[in-house]
């Protein structure tokens, strides 16, 4: 794919804005790569050329950086890129089964989009949501406590345009390109929306409330279940 002249003209001021955030221009390279990915859905040779041009680097230098980071794709992925965590804990909790099942269900290999271009899958490493294992990411939004069946339903809905909401995240699921734009530092206005404190996030807080434990370390002896737990611990 080629980065059109129109696209270059449109992206140039955005690139300048990104570069302006940093004391040294080269620091803008990672966000610039996210920016070109938001245009084409992956980091093409043209995208690499664009970044190199903005920063006065060689294409080889930019390629060396782009190839180091797993989020930059060198060929198109689906409009909805599904990452199944298969690092140890998620793998044990069901991530292995989910990934195997999804590949089978969609009939694709990792990073290979479905023929309609809607969905691609890959295995991702630990995504910092272990208390919701097994975790699946769609365009880097959290889908918690998944099963092979719920993952199948998820990709089916993504392909048929069904209503898909992350467990914790923005209510309107971004496309892969839109997500890359946010990563480049251009918000989409959804920051204040969506549910983010799931059961696991609140587990300790709720238990503390139930016990009447206050942040200062004191305890409210009248709390409902305080004594029951105390007895249980004897």
């Amino acid at each position, binding site marked *: 794919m080629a980065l059109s002249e129109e696209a270059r003209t449109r992206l140039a001021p955005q690139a300048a804005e990104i570069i302006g955030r940093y*004391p*040294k221009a080269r*620091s*803008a390279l*990672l966000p610039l*790569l996210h920016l070109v990915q938001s245009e084409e859905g992956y980091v093409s040779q043209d995208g690499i050329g664009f970044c190199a041009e903005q*920063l006065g680097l060689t294409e080889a230098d930019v390629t060396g*950086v782009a190839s*180091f*980071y*797993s*989020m*930059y794709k060198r060929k198109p992925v689906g409009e909805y890129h599904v990452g199944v965590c*298969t*690092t*140890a*804990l998620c793998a*044990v*909790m*069901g991530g292995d*089964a989910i990934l195997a099942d999804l590949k089978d269900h969609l009939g694709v290999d990792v990073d290979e989009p479905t023929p309609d271009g809607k969905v691609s899958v890959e295995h991702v*490493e*630990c*995504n*910092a*949501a*272990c*208390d919701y294992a097994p975790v699946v990411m769609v*365009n*880097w939004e959290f889908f918690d406590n998944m*099963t092979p069946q719920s993952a199948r339903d998820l990709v089916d809905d993504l392909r048929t345009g069904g209503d898909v909401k992350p467990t*914790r*995240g923005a209510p309107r699921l*971004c496309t892969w390109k839109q*997500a890359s734009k*946010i*990563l480049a*530092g251009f918000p*989409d206005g959804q*920051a*204040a929306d969506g549910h*983010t*404190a799931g*059961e*696991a*996030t*609140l*587990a*300790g*807080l*709720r*238990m*503390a409330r139930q*016990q009447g*434990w206050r*942040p200062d*370390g004191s*305890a409210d002896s009248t709390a409902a279940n305080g004594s029951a737990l*105390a007895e249980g*611990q004897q």
Partner: protein
Amino acid sequence: MTTILIPELSAHWDEPDSFRLAGYRRDGGYQALRKALAMAPDEVIQTLKDSALRGRGGAGFPTGVKWGFIPQGDGKPHYLVVNADESEPGACKDMPTLLNNPQALIEGMIIACYAIRARLGFIYVRGEVLHVIRRLQLAVSEAYQAGYLGENILGSGLTLDIVVHAGAGAYICGEETALLDSLEGFRGQPRLKPPFPAVAGLYARPTVVNNVESIATVPYILRSGPAEFARFGTEKSKGFGLFSLSGHVTTPGQYEAPLGTTLRELLGLAGGVRNGNRLKFWTPGGSSTPLFTDQHLDVPLDYESVAAAGSMLGTRSIQLFDETTCPVRVVLRWAEFYRHESCGKCTPCREGSWWVVQLLDRLERGAGSEGDLDKLLDICDNITGRAFCALGDSIQPSVASSIKYFRDEYIEHLRIGGCPFDHAASTLFALESAR
């Protein structure tokens, strides 16, 4: 009964606007900043030293001491960089903190920048967490609008900018010097230390790199006083922190408690191991820390006690595995993680991680021989201490400790020529399908 949990950072996470500036201010937010700005910068550093807060990113280095290393009056720009690249397998505390209370980080950053005389701060956040990044962008924008960032903050004359910088998928960037290289627009590979970042960090200027939770705890310390913070915890591990329980536990999640709390206490609150099963092994601080078993339920989870018992407190990332779990499989998968994430800069880690995976894979499949166990330990010995950074050193702990506790199970794989475990039994949905 004694109080086990201290919900401080997590105190308002269930309020619908806990992540908004208005919500944060309603709950006492930004009082600490006013207090700090009325103090001399060195007094703020001293306050942190007095609190004895130790870095919450795993290494446990005293935060105030780190701040004190920044040379003053050197005429150079100073930088604060927050490490929000949370990626250690098992670690899942910083992301909920940023989703639900990002303003605590912003306030902490302003105070830290004031103390170390930095005029520019960065939040290096891993890229694979879209909504976390949105929340950080919103938090920074709200702080600018309210006059907490920008020029002449609260009339103090302090000028400060904060930039949210999204990474692009590389665990190694959690290592502070690799993070700095990445932030400078290079491949994220670690630098040789010394010089340490305090002397030559970002753009070779004096730089403090701190974990999210460390900085987010700063407002509490300023507001409540260092003595109040140091009242919690144990002799050398003061204060409280988030303990993250995951895996085969009835109620996984975030439990904010004083350092020195035991897993037995935490499990008591979390409903124990799922389904009444037996705890087989667990990590006290993520996949880089040696395994513990059910013999270690009463080890106080502070830096010293965990180290004395043969492991590391790390990031308090407690991954629990019950009797349905094959330890060889788990350790193989962690080794695969390190192989995938090795940056390739140094030979022991780049090559060693591949050999470790090959041997473990062979053992898990029930091929190979008992001699492979010794070979594994030998290779691990040749990685540890010889790698460029801590990533290489992280390969050995789970391998060596699993052989120590579960040698018989490795042998059983060889005896029957395969994995003796039903992997379906260890999944989240195993219980549902059994019904």
